[in-house]
């Protein structure tokens, strides 16, 4: 029986494999399906709503809504409501809201319960900040410890 290690830590920085390929650098096409799309060009906003699913390469994002702000290029991408990122069969991140900023290549996931899972190992907090350039992900929880479960793999 594999030993399960439980930690309660106020801050945990974890270097993991790339869970999300940087949208700004990945040249694979992006495919999005949703129930509706509203574009308001005067304010530079495009919003997909209703069962939104975004697929790029091995990355899948699902959410209730996906909003893109643009000008000369993509400025920010914000997913809200039941946000989930999945890469392959081994890595998952979930929360209430996710914001991606191409200029800093930073993905921020927030919510009452933000979960980062790789295989059987899990981190739970209320905020995940993932720097896609350095591939460093940081899970924090305001006012309390981050819950971490690590399962060593033989």
């Amino acid at each position, binding site marked *: 029986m594999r030993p399960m290690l439980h930690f309660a830590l106020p801050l945990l920085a974890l270097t993991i494999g790339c869970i999300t390929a940087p949208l700004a650098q990945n040249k694979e096409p992006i495919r999005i399906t949703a129930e509706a799309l509203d574009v308001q*060009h*005067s304010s530079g906003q495009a919003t997909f709503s209703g069962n939104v699913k975004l697929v790029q390469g091995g990355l899948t994002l699902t959410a209730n809504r996906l909003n893109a702000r643009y000008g000369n290029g993509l400025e920010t991408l914000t997913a809200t409501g039941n946000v989930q990122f999945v890469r392959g069969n081994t890595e998952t991140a979930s929360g209430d809201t996710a914001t991606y900023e191409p200029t800093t290549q930073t993905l921020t996931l927030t919510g009452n319960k933000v979960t980062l899972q790789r295989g059987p190992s899990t981190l739970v907090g209320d905020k995940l900040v993932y720097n896609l350039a350095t591939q460093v992900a940081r899970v924090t929880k305001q006012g309390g410890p981050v819950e971490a479960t690590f399962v060593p793999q033989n």
Partner: protein
Amino acid sequence: MTLTRAQKLIGLGLAATGLAALLALNVRESRTIVVEAQPATLQTNTSGTLVGAMEAPRYSGRSANGTEWNLTAATANQIGSGQTGEHIPSHATGELRLTQLAATFTRPDEEPLSIASQAATYQPHTTQLTLPEGTDISGTLGGYTVVLQAAQANAELSATTLRLTGGVSATLWAR
């Protein structure tokens, strides 16, 4: 009878106010300007409806916040006489069936949003563009080349908005 200085000043003030009001009433937030749209043919069909056909029509305008829009097509077939008015030429009203259309929205200092489609229905007086189901809409958005499909697609050019419903599929390629 001569006017006192106070009466002259009051009169000038009223005149200026009236002129400003007239200017305000005549300001339109968004005007549709027909740049090129010469009816190639104009005839009455067997139902008594006036029908016009245009080649290479072009419409343009500017929204309240300065976004410019342009609409061009290979052909436009007009059905119905539409409404006429002092400032509205007859060929700018009614409903138009467009083929091979392209619409562009341009904000200052930014890349334009452009959409293209093989067919659409256009109402010049309201600048409403309706694309039929299954139409591929291709364009550029935020530095990406985009192809869109939806059951229903509508654009309001003067408001520079686009709405797709009934199930949307979008494919984007970085440019």
